């Protein structure tokens, strides 16, 4: 990592202490809400009602209510047909939705980007601009017609409605195209000389090399898909078709409206796995995102 040594001497002085102080404060602000969530999830209902900030030792005598987690799952309810807690249906629906979206965006991005990078088709520029143009179309503009389409196609309350509108990621197409264009030309020429078809070249050379970019597209679309809330809220009807975000919001205005400790337990179950996942895949995220920010 480059460092302009010209800026400040590396020894500790007031300036550096100040810098660390600011950064630590910022990092704490970033993290404390999560701590609040975890701590609240371990309180008893009584402590929540009386706003006891720290009911555990040394100021209090309660134990950490780990039982809030199974209790939250129980309070969220049961799927009557599958006889499993609804929470697991929510989880399954989210996994399906995100899984299909991730696979879909990766596949469509790779294929489209390959054409843009390697194949000369008539109207290529036109199509590229068309893809670009979709970035200008805000979600709000297509919300009403897409909802109507879902009703008309009889996709209301189905997995199709949750996944199909999200299978193309323009960001993904851009990123992959960028990446492909940076692959040395010699590899392509060599493959062609060997008589390899586009498909062969794509599968055996391009995709393996593009693994970092693919990971970035996959990870980012995964995170963004978990954020889907308004759309699933509008296009699903039954409890057992909800995704986690919708399930949490519905719980929040229901039992969770007074049982804050259970609400926070539910929130923790959504947030903590993603944080752990992030901890192990950090590099892919930050490097991938960084690449998208740089022009040229």
């Amino acid at each position: 990592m480059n460092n302009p040594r010209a800026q400040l001497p590396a020894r500790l002085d007031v300036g550096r202490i100040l810098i660390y102080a600011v950064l630590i404060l910022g990092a704490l602000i970033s993290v404390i809400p999560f701590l609040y969530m975890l701590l609240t999830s371990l309180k008893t209902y009584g402590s929540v009602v009386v706003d006891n900030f720290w009911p555990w030792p040394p100021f209090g005598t309660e134990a950490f209510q780990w039982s809030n987690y199974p209790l939250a799952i129980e309070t969220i309810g049961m799927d009557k047909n599958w006889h499993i807690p609804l929470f697991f249906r929510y989880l399954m629906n989210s996994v399906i939705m995100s899984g299909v979206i991730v696979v879909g965006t990766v596949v469509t991005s790779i294929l489209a980007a390959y054409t843009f990078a390697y194949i000369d088709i008539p109207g290529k520029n036109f199509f590229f601009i068309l893809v670009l143009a979709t970035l200008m179309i805000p979600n709000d503009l297509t919300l009403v017609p897409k909802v109507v389409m879902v009703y008309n196609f009889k996709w209301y309350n189905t997995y199709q409605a949750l996944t199909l509108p999200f299978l193309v990621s323009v960001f993904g197409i851009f990123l992959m195209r960028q990446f492909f264009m940076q692959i040395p030309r010699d590899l392509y020429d060599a493959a062609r000389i060997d008589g390899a078809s586009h498909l062969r070249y794509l599968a055996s050379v391009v995709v393996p090399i593009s693994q970092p970019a693919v990971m970035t597209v996959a990870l980012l679309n995964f995170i963004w898909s978990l954020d889907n809330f308004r759309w699933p809220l509008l296009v699903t009807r039954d409890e057992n078709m909800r995704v986690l975000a919708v399930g949490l919001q519905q719980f929040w205005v229901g039992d969770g409206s007074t049982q804050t400790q259970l609400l926070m337990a539910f929130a923790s179950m959504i947030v903590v796995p993603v944080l752990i996942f992030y901890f192990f895949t950090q590099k892919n995220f930050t490097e991938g995102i960084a690449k998208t920010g740089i022009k040229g």
Partner: protein
Amino acid sequence: MLSKKPLAKLIAVLVLFAVVLSACAPATPPPTQAPTTAPAAEEPAKPTATTAPTATSAPKPTATTAPTATAKPVSNPPTTAEEVDSITFSKKTLVIYWHNRPQKDQDMLQSMLDEFNKTNPYGITATAEIAGASYNDVYNKINASIQAGVPPSMAVAYQNQAALYRTQDAVIDLTPFIKSKKYGLSEEDLKDYFPTFLASDANPQFKGETLGFPTQRSMEVMYYNADWLKQLGYDAPPTDWKTFEEIACKAAQTSGKAGWAFKHDASNFASQIFSRGGRILAEDGASYAFNSQAGVDTLTFIQSMFANKCAVEVPVSERNGEQNRFAKGDVLFTFGSSSGLPFYQAAVAAGGKFKWDIAMLPNTGKPAVNLYGASVSVFKTTPEQELASWLVIKFLGEKAQTVKWASATGYMPVRQSAKDEVIANFKKDAKWGPVADSYAKLFDWTQYAMVESPVAGYDPVRALIDTDLMSKVVTDPKADVKALLEAAAKKADAILKENAPK
């Protein structure tokens, strides 16, 4: 991080998984409705035959021929009691009931329905589902489902919501079912129902069609912290608004405490208007009437409660937030549904552990209570399903069920004959203490019952009341209350017109 081979395998597995799931998805077992409503939803919004529920209008020869009865086509929905009598159940019928109670009530409701499923001779299976956390959520879901052509068989619905569904030709008139000799309610049975409960369901916008039937009722009551009230020097809860304000402001003098918890709930506003002799909707149903003096006084009251820092506002994101604040002992008075009794009880038992009770809201001389707790409406599906839904409603209204439901939820039972047993159940249960006696009083209060507004399009008006009236006076001590009311009433009338049956 991942080397390429496992990554490729992972992608292949995911693709396969995704393909298989998308293919299988429509077949997943949640009991959805047969889309027989699709044609109904596409018809123009004119209400079908304004059903005169008399026997004479039925040209179809039914009722006399006993043995056959399967081949006669019954109109959908059935328009006469005879048509309803002629319906038979040729196959198993599934009824889906959407409601908004939390999980433990869902469990109780389903256990009652399980008994129905076991004992009914018609092969009807009924399931209850939580469609949303509030009536509003259920309403939104139903609207979307109607658009999509897949409404439930029956659902909780306020009169105004039922009216809106009716403008879309999505719910049916229950009169033929009530009057059916084979499947309906006898005169004796009907008399057992509380008259005010039944009366509220005859809809003025649709020539007195009965668009819903009660399985429960509740009313807006004042919850108060009896111990704290005594400490402040008062023996009984206030019966007029001046005293209420006086007591509340005295309570708020202690730092960190408030006299009253304000909710962003139009029903709170309506209850106060009723208590001041006003109405939400004019008697003829042609315009909104909340911009009366009662409205002015209500908003002025709220405004001054906040200007004098006697009230605390429950944030919009903290639904039912007044409950925990009350239970902690931070708020002296709250207004809420009597169906919240079990929740308040659990909260106070976990929190402040003080003596508390319920009372009617203060009034300006003439007592009035906001009677709500929705009825159940039946959606237009098939005659068999509609009849099956009606039978479920009838079952839930029978004495045994209504006693169970009321005793568990704090709702009022719908039958007069059930009243004593429910009250006895409350009195037997130690955790209720003095509240059991107050619960008994609810029945006395029903004579003062008022209903908010049974016309289509009232839900957007409720949203309007909060955003344009209540929220404004809470934050602005200088807001011109009269002007706000006039503007809001104008908007409300426009919404009334927009949603009226064409």
